[in-house]
C-alpha cells in the first residue's frame, strides 16, 4: 500500500476506534476497506451495518466512492432503494452500492475517514 493509503487507514482506525476495520491490499498500492458495526440509524433493520469501500492508489487525489453495505440490509418500511442506491457485486459479494461522488473533493482537506462519516450521515438522513 502507498504511504498515503496507510495513513488514511490509520486515520479511520483512530476516528472509528470501537469498530473492527478489515483491510486488504489491492495490489497496486490501494486497499479494500470494511468498517464493521457502524450505526446507520433506526430506520434500518438492523440499525448497524458494515460499510466497505476502495481507497485507490491515487488517493488522496482520487475521490473515495462508491461505498457498499450488506445486501441483506432492509429499511423498516421496505427495501433500501432510491437515488444513489443500487444492487451490485463488490469483492465477490452481493452489496448495496451507495454512490456519493464528491464533486468538490479537495485532496488537501478531504480524507477517506471524513468521507465515510459523510456517507454515514447521509444514510441516516434518508
Amino acid at each position, binding site marked *: *500500500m*502507498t*504511504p*498515503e493509503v496507510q495513513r488514511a487507514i490509520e486515520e479511520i482506525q483512530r476516528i472509528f476506534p470501537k469498530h*473492527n*476495520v*478489515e*483491510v*486488504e*491490499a*489491492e*495490489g*497496486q*498500492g*490501494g486497499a479494500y476497506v470494511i468498517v464493521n458495526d457502524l450505526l446507520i440509524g433506526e430506520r434500518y433493520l438492523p440499525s448497524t451495518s458494515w460499510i466497505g469501500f*476502495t481507497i*485507490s*492508489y*491515487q488517493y*488522496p*487525489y*482520487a*475521490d*473515495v*466512492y*462508491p461505498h457498499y453495505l450488506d445486501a441483506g440490509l432492509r429499511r423498516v418500511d421496505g427495501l433500501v432503494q432510491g437515488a444513489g442506491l*443500487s444492487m*451490485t*457485486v*463488490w469483492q465477490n459479494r452481493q452489496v448495496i*452500492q451507495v454512490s456519493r*461522488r*464528491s*464533486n468538490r*473533493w*479537495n*485532496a*488537501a*482537506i478531504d480524507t477517506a475517514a471524513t468521507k465515510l462519516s459523510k456517507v454515514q450521515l447521509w444514510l441516516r438522513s434518508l
Partner: protein
Amino acid sequence: MKEPVELRIDATLFEKLENHLFPGDRDEHGAVIAAGIVETPRGTRLLVREVFLARDGIDYVPGQRGYRALTARFVAEISGYCAKENLCYLAVHCHGGKDEVSFSSDDIASHERGYPALLDITCGGPVGALVFAKNAVAGDIWTTSGRYKLDHMTIIGANIRKLYPSPRMRSPIANPMYDRHSRMFGDVGQEILSNLKVGIIGLGGGGSLINEWLSRLGVGHIVAIDFDRVELTNLPRIVGANHWDAMTWLIKSGIPWLEKLGKRLAAYKVHVARRVAKQANPSIRYDAIVGNIVDELIAKLLVDTDFIFLAADSMQSRLVFNAIVHQYLIPGIQIGAKVPVEKQTKQVGDIFTATRPVLPYAYGGCLHCHELIPPGRLQQETLSETERRNQQYVEDENIAQPSVITLNVKSAEQAVNDFKMMFTGLYKPEVQLQHQLHFARERKTIEVKPRANSNCLDCSDSNRSRRARGDRFRLPCRMLEAPSNGK
C-alpha cells in the same frame, strides 16, 4: 553524487532572491535556500523550494573573519528547518562584478570551518554555499561523500535562463543543416536545443506531431512513453504510421483469429515515433518506452528531462505529469483536443483545442488548481474493467471519440512554439504563459486566467506540497506489489 551539479529555481523565487541580493546599493547581502534534490545518471539537480532572506544587520552582520556573515541563530534556525523537512541547506551571498564570480579565500575557509558540522545537523545534507554576481553564480556543495562545484543554475519562467560561474566557451562548429534556425536564434540557440532531453507522454495524434517537430528542430534526446499499438483508425493522424504498422491486411481480413493476430503484431506507437525522429535527425538519442506513465518506474524516466509534453488523454497521466513538473521543477505543456458529440442527437458541440503550459510554481498553470484532474474520474480510472462494470459506471470511454489531425496540429503547434521560444529566450519579458483554448467553430482563441490554491499539494508552498522535493517525495504512481491481507 553524480556530476554535473545543477541548481534549478523558478522565476518567481529567483526574482525575490535577485531583488534582495542586488537592490542597487552595491553592498553584500545574504540569504539561505532550502532545496530538494534529484540524483540521476545525467547529473544531480538541487531544486529550490524556499528562499529565506537574511535581514541586513539582524541575520546578516559584520563577520569576525570575513566582511559579513549569517548569524549563528539564523543558521541554526534554517538548518534545523532543512533537517526537519529533509531539504538541502545552501547559504547565499553576493559579490560585485557581472559575468564572472568565485568564492573568496575567506568564503572557502568559512565553509571548511562550518560545513562538516552542518552536514551532521542536516542529516547528511547536502549543504553548501552559492555566490552570485549579477549574471553569474558559483557553488561549493558538500556531501557526506565529497565536495562538488556547481556547474550552472537554471531559472524557469516564460524564458528559461542559465547562469554559470563564468562565460562559457561555445562550440565553434555549427551544423549547416540548421542554418535557417540559426538565423533566427543563433548557433547558441541551436546548441541549447541539441543539449535538451525532452519527454513526450502519449504518441498518438498530438504526440506524434510534437515528436516530429522536436526532431526536426534538432532536440538532442527524446524520451517517448506510450503503451499502445498502432490501430487502423490511427493512420489518418499518427505521423509516419503506415498500413504495415497497423497490420491492415490482417485487421481487414474478416477472419477473427487473423484480426486478433494483427492487433498483437501491430507496431508500438513509440517505435513508429522513433523511426520518424531518426529520419528527421539521424544523430538524435531516442528512448522509445513501451509503458504507462502511471507506473513509478516509467514515470521516473522523466525526472532528469528539461521539458515534458503531455499528449495523453487520461486523468491519471495528467496527475503524474503535474506531479513531475512540480516535484522536479521541470516545465511542461499539456495538449488536447475535444469534439463533444451529443449522445442522442449526434450533434457536434463546441469543438475546442487546448494548449496548457504548466510551470512549477503557484499561478504557473497547475492542472489541479485549474480543476483539470477531476477526483471522481481519477477514481474510476484506477478500477479494473470488471469493477467499473460492477459499479455501473461504464460510460462513453469505450466508445471511440472523434479525432482529426488538424485539431491535434492546432494544440501541438502552439505547444512546440512555446517550447522553442522559452529555451531560445525569445519571449518578451511581459509574456505570461497562460492556458490557451481555441474554439474551432467560433474561430476564437481565449486565454485562461491563472489560478492557484494556497493549500495545493502540488504547486503551493504548504508544508505538505511536493513542489521541489525531488527524490525525497513519492510520485502519485501505481505500485507493483503482491496482494496481502491485513487487519
